[in-house]
C-alpha cells in the first residue's frame, strides 16, 4: 500500500513528502479528503483565507487495473456553501497521482505575490513560477502546458474566475486529448486553490512506480467479478445504454416524468426537450464526425463520454453531459444544442461549474437581466464574467448570490449550492438527497433517480415521500464508492448484481490488505458522513439548513401539480438515525 502524502506549503513555498498517518491508512478519495479537512481546517475559517486547505486524493483502488476507477476527490471548505466539500472528477490525473505513490496532496498557506505551478513527477515535486498563465482561458493554457512539459502530462487548473475569487469556480482536469473538460466543478474549489496562490498542478507519470496491492489474489478475484458485472449490465456494458447515448439520454425520460426543470424550475415538462435530448445529440455527433463512446480515463468499461463539435465538425468542445445540457439549456429556456455547446465551452474555458452557471443564468433571467431562451445573451453574459465587469462579478458567485442581488425568490439552492437536473417535487427521494447531503444540493450524494425513475436497483414510486431509510443507505453507499475511487455509474451494476458489489468490496480489501465484506460498506460510509456533518455543525449549520427552498413547498410544478411534501422530521432522521 502506498503511504505518501505531499504537503505543499504556499507560504514557505515548500513541497515535502511525509508518511501517511496510521489513522488514514484505510482511507482514500472522499474518505481521506474529508478526514484531512475535518482534522486540519478550522470549520469557522474563511474559505478563501489562510487557514483553509485544498486536499486532492485518488480513490483506494485508483491507479490499479480495477475497472472504471479513475476518480479523484478534491476537498476543502467550500466558498459556495460554507461547509465541507468533496468534489469528484474522472480523469487520468487521478490514476497518475496514485501511480506516483501519492495518497493525497495537501495545499496549505497562501502565496500572495502571484501564482505558482506545482510540478510533480517520480523525482519529486517543485513549485515554479506560473505568472505567464494568469488571465488566460483554460483550453489554450492546457495546450501550452502540454507543450511546455510534454505530451501526456496530467493537469489540474484553476481558471480566470478562480483568480477573481468566484464562489462558482471549479477545478479543471485534462481529458484524454488534453482539453480542459473534466471538472471537479462543484462548490468553488477553484477559488480555494487560486487563493493559495496555486494556479496549476502538473503530473508527469513517466516511470511512476504504481499502486501497491497488498493481497493480489483477493484484489484480482474482486476485479474480475466487478468487470463481469459491468460487462453484463444493460446500462454499463460496452455498447450499452451509457456508451450509446451518454448521460444525456435522461433528458427525455425526466421530461416525460414531468421532473425536468424548465425556465428556472417553473415547469417539469416542455415538448422542446426533444431538441436537446440524448437521442438528438447522438444523431448529430455521428453526422458531424464527433466521438462516441469515449472514456474520461483509461480502463473504463462504461465509456459514457463523447466529444461534441461545432456544426462543421471543427473545434471539439469535449463532453456535453446531461446536467450541463439541462442547466444551460431547458433550465434557461434554451433548446438548441449548438448554443448549449458554446455555453459549455465558455464554462470549461473560464473554470465555471456548468450546473451552478446554468442555474445562475436562469435566476438572472427570472430577475429580468435577460429573457428566457436568449442564448446569444447568455453567451454575452459569460464574456462579462471573463472580463470581470460588475455584471460579470454578479454572475460568478452562483445562483444564491445572483438571486439575492436581483431580488428573486425562486432560487433553487440548498446550503447555497444550486440544484441539479431533477425537480424534487416530481421525484421526492432526490429532494431528500439535496436537502440532507453535507455538500448542498447534489444528485450524486444519493442517486435515488435509479430506483425512482430508471428501474435500476429496484423500483420505488417517485411520488412517495417516505424514503428516509432509502436515502440514508444510498448516501452511505455513495460515500463508500467515492472513497474506493469508483465511478458512481458502477453503482448501476452493483445495485442489480450482488456479485459485482462483492467484487467491488474485495478490490478495496485487496489493495488495503484488510478483509472487508459487503456488510462493512454501510459503516464505512456512515463514518465519512458523520465527519462531514460534524464539520458542518461546527461551521454553523443547523437542521434548518437541511431543507429545500420554500417555493418548492408552496408552488406546484406543472404539469402534474405536485409540491415537495417530505416532512421535516423525515429529513432530520435521514443522517441521524440508523
Amino acid at each position, binding site marked *: 500500500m502506498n503511504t505518501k502524502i505531499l504537503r505543499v506549503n504556499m507560504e514557505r513555498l515548500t513541497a515535502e513528502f511525509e508518511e501517511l498517518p496510521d489513522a488514514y491508512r484505510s482511507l482514500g478519495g472522499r474518505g481521506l479528503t474529508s478526514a484531512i479537512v475535518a482534522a486540519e481546517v478550522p470549520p469557522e475559517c474563511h474559505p478563501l483565507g489562510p487557514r483553509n486547505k485544498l486536499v486532492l486524493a485518488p480513490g483506494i483502488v485508483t491507479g490499479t487495473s480495477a475497472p472504471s476507477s479513475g476518480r479523484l476527490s478534491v476537498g476543502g471548505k467550500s466558498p459556495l456553501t460554507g461547509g465541507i466539500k468533496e468534489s469528484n472528477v474522472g480523469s487520468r490525473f487521478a490514476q497518475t497521482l496514485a501511480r506516483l505513490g501519492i495518497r493525497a496532496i495537501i495545499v496549505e498557506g497562501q502565496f500572495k505575490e502571484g501564482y505558482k505551478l506545482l510540478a510533480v513527477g517520480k523525482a519529486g515535486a517543485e513549485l515554479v513560477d506560473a505568472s505567464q498563465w494568469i488571465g488566460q482561458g483554460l483550453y489554450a493554457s492546457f495546450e501550452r502546458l502540454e507543450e511546455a512539459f510534454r505530451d501526456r502530462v496530467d493537469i489540474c487548473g484553476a481558471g480566470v474566475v478562480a483568480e477573481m475569487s468566484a464562489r462558482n469556480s471549479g477545478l479543471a482536469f485534462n481529458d484524454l486529448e488534453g482539453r480542459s473538460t473534466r471538472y471537479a466543478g462543484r462548490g468553488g474549489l477553484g477559488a480555494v486553490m487560486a487563493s493559495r496562490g496555486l494556479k496549476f498542478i502538473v503530473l508527469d507519470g513517466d516511470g511512476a512506480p504504481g499502486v501497491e496491492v497488498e493481497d493480489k489474489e483477493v484484489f484480482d478475484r474482486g476485479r474480475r467479478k466487478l468487470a463481469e458485472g459491468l460487462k453484463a449490465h444493460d446500462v454499463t456494458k460496452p455498447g450499452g*445504454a451509457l456508451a450509446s447515448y451518454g448521460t444525456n439520454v435522461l433528458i427525455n*425520460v425526466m421530461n416525460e416524468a414531468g421532473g425536468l426543470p424548465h425556465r428556472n424550475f417553473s415547469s417539469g415538462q416542455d415538448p422542446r426537450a426533444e431538441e436537446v435530448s440524448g437521442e438528438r445529440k447522438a444523431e448529430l455527433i455521428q453526422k458531424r464526425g464527433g466521438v462516441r463512446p469515449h472514456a474520461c480515463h483509461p480502463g473504463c468499461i462504461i465509456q459514457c463520454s463523447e466529444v461534441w463539435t461545432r456544426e462543421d465538425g471543427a473545434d471539439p468542445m469535449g463532453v456535453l453531459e446531461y446536467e450541463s445540457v439541462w442547466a444551460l439549456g431547458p433550465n434557461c429556456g434554451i433548446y438548441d444544442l449548438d448554443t448549449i455547446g458554446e455555453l459549455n465551452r465558455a464554462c470549461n474555458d473560464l473554470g465555471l461549474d456548468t450546473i451552478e452557471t446554468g442555474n445562475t443564468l436562469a435566476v438572472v433571467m427570472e430577475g429580468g437581466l435577460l429573457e428566457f431562451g436568449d442564448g446569444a445573451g447568455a453567451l454575452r453574459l459569460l464574456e462579462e464574467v471573463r472580463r470581470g465587469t460588475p455584471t460579470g462579478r454578479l454572475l460568478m458567485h452562483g445562483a444564491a448570490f445572483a438571486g439575492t442581488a436581483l431580488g428573486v425568490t425562486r432560487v433553487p439552492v440548498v446550503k447555497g449550492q444550486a440544484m441539479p437536473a431533477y425537480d424534487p417535487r416530481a421525484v421526492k427521494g432526490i429532494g431528500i438527497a439535496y436537502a440532507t447531503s453535507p455538500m448542498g444540493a447534489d444528485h450524486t450524494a444519493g442517486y435515488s433517480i435509479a430506483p425512482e*425513475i430508471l428501474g435500476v436497483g429496484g423500483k420505488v414510486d417517485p411520488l412517495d415521500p417516505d424514503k428516509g431509510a432509502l436515502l440514508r443507505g444510498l448516501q452511505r453507499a455513495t460515500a463508500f464508492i467515492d472513497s474506493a475511487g469508483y465511478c458512481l455509474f458502477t453503482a448501476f451494476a452493483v445495485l442489480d448484481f450482488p456479485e459485482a458489489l462483492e467484487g467491488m468490496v474485495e478490490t478495496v480489501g485487496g489493495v488495503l490488505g484488510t478483509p472487508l465484506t459487503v456488510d462493512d460498506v454501510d459503516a464505512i460510509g456512515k463514518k465519512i458522513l458523520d465527519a462531514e456533518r460534524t464539520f458542518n455543525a461546527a461551521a454553523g449549520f443547523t437542521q434548518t439548513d437541511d431543507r429545500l427552498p420554500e417555493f418548492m413547498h408552496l408552488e406546484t410544478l406543472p404539469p402534474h401539480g405536485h409540491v415537495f411534501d417530505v416532512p421535516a422530521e423525515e429529513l432530520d432522521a435521514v443522517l441521524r438515525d440508523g
Partner: protein
Amino acid sequence: MMEAPSVTVRLFARLREAAGTSEIALQAQDIRGLLDALVAKAPSVGSELLEADGQLRQAVTVMVNGRNIEFLGGLDTPLRGGDTVAVFPVVAGG
C-alpha cells in the same frame, strides 16, 4: 364490444432505432394490449421490450401520461382516448 381507445405511443433510445420512428398511434384497452399491438406493428422492438417468455423486461419503463405503470395498474393499466404512453428501454445517466 367497444372500440379500443386511440393513444399516442412515444418511443425512445434503442426502441426508436428499432421501430424506425419516435411516435406511433395505436389502439388498445390497456398496456398489455398496447404492447402486443406495438410488437405486431414494429416486430423489431420485441427483443428490446420482452424477455424470451414474453414478460416485460425488468428495466423497461412504461409511463402513461408521465406516471410509471408500476404505480398504476402494471400491464393491466387501462387506457383512455388521448393518453400518451412513453416506452423506454433500459437507460441511465446522471
